[in-house]
């Protein structure tokens, strides 16, 4: 290796480090002491390098937090109700309605629990199983605390007294057309099995606003031709839902629900319990919608 080449590399490495430290200190300055205190108060396990078993790191969270806080406070101007219903510690399942083509609802719920709950809580949500095949998303989401959605992962986290956010409507909810807003789709039973198996209280969450953030219609024939599960189209450029409309988010956290029973019961028995959760969320949605004066403010 010639000395010149070595110098070159040295310059490249230190330029990279300089940029990294500048970005890092910029993020720290913007986040301020509020984030620092809340991040410290977050109950997470971490090893000597600052990572937990699922790859979450407080250090990486800062980058996501800056964007998430801006979306939460400035873009969606979120109103959060009932945060005092969220227990400060112990295992928890947040169950919410899911809508809006892109999962901003998950981001907003997570941010609310971090910024408004006392002490702050981290709600881990589950990413689709294809996400680990995507570059960058694969590891960034896990640095921010997201997990691959397998029942074993959820069980392990709940047994470690962590909180998980689930959307039992799944893809049926997020990709439903605008005409079906605030109509809850069918709930899966998996979350109830999990709650019964691990004896976890369920906190129902109603999200108002997300259902209008991307007023899409589903172009079914084209989706079929392209081999996609759905093809949502919005009536403004770029016509595919990427940027959500600046709707106002309203979050309602309900009181924890406790269920008992055998997780291996027949589906009918479980369905009854699931219906209780679904009805609770539906009535919270009705109440919230009645109180709302306008979609955007």
């Amino acid at each position, binding site marked *: 290796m010639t000395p010149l080449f070595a110098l070159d590399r040295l310059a490249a490495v230190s330029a990279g480090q300089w940029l990294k430290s500048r970005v890092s200190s910029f993020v720290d300055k913007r986040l301020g002491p509020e984030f620092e205190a809340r991040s410290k108060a977050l109950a997470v396990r971490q090893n000597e390098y600052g*990572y937990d078993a699922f790859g979450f790191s407080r250090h990486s969270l800062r980058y996501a937090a800056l964007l998430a806080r801006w979306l939460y406070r400035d873009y969606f101007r979120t109103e959060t109700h009932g945060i005092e219903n969220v227990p400060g510690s112990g295992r928890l399942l947040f169950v919410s309605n899911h809508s809006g083509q892109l999962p901003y609802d998950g981001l907003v719920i997570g941010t609310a629990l971090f910024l408004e709950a006392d002490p702050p809580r981290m709600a881990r949500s589950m990413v689709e199983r294809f996400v680990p095949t995507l570059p960058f998303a*694969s590891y960034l989401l896990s640095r921010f605390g997201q997990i691959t959605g397998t029942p074993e992962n959820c069980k392990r986290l709940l047994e470690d007294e962590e909180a998980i956010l689930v959307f039992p409507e799944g893809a049926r909810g997020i990709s439903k057309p605008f005409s079906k807003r605030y109509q809850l789709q069918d709930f899966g039973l998996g979350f109830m099995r999990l709650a019964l198996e691990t004896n976890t209280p369920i906190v129902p969450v109603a999200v108002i606003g997300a259902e209008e953030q991307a007023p899409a219609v589903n172009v079914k024939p084209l989706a079929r031709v392209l081999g996609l599960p759905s093809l949502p189209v919005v009536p403004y450029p770029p016509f595919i839902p990427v940027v959500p409309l600046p709707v106002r988010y309203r979050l309602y956290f309900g009181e924890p629900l406790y269920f008992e029973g055998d997780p291996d019961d027949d589906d009918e028995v479980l369905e009854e319990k699931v219906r209780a959760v679904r009805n609770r969320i539906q009535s919270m949605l009705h109440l919230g919608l009645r109180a709302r004066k306008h979609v955007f403010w």
Partner: protein
Amino acid sequence: MSSGNRHDRSSPAEQLNIVITGIAGRFGRLVARTLHRDERFRVIGIDRRPFKGKPKDVEHHQVDLRSKKARDVFRQGDVDALVHLGMMHAPRAKSEELFSWNIGGTAKLFEYCLAYHVPKVVVLSSANVYGPRPDNTQFLTEEAPLLAAQAFPEMRDLVEIDHMASSFFWKARDINTTILRPVHILGRVKNAPSNYLRLQRVPTLLGFDPMVQMIHENDAAGAIRCALAPQARGIYNITGPGELPLSAVLDELGRQRVPVPHNMARALWSAAWRAGVSSFPVQEFDFIRYVCMVDGSRAHRDLGYRPRYSLRETIRAVEG
């Protein structure tokens, strides 16, 4: 061929005769040293290679596993345990030769154990047998299917040996068979993960940074000693001190990362392989793309195994 004979030596009667296959490799020698230090064990080695730096009272047979001479080691019927490490992972060897060595050799060993009543068999498999997959749960338990061979034909032998060992476990119920599936063993050993971490400029996949688990070579040897306990039987994942993103492991070693887009990696890698620059088979890059981590709690509970080295010590071990 053989040196040091257990029959004409006045050894304490309560010592257990342990046969170790693949003893001449770096990890084999480490296991031999670990067991040799323990008063309870007398170490007997089988390997085609000479055993460099062999302690005087270790008996070594420089023979092929499949040969009659290997059978003779067992014939007296005084072997108390077999530790099978003799898997060959030469990536450039012909697959027929590897198959015949690995599968044929293992089948022979199991045959000797049945015929000459060896009461205890420990087989070193690997946590890699589960295979790195995008939909893997974060911590796989011993019940997870062994899917590694689906994506890598090269892993077929390892998966096959693991399956052979578990069917031997069921077939020979009076033999305590233990299968160990350790995570990436790091240290001075020459295996793919340690060699990879010893590179100065380390190729990684752009936009992928999976969590990885590793174990210090001494801890892995310690786990084998735990598995030799008479009551131990069954399949155990063996984990180290914890898990880290690959990037944090490379940063700890001060390595320069060379990120390659994953869709170009396959072509670049196989070109490098053909040119003889790289010794990593193309398929193995899934190990730096997806998670393949295991839950080691069963070994903690049943074998009483605990790692003694910290994460930092484990990673640093590759520098010897």
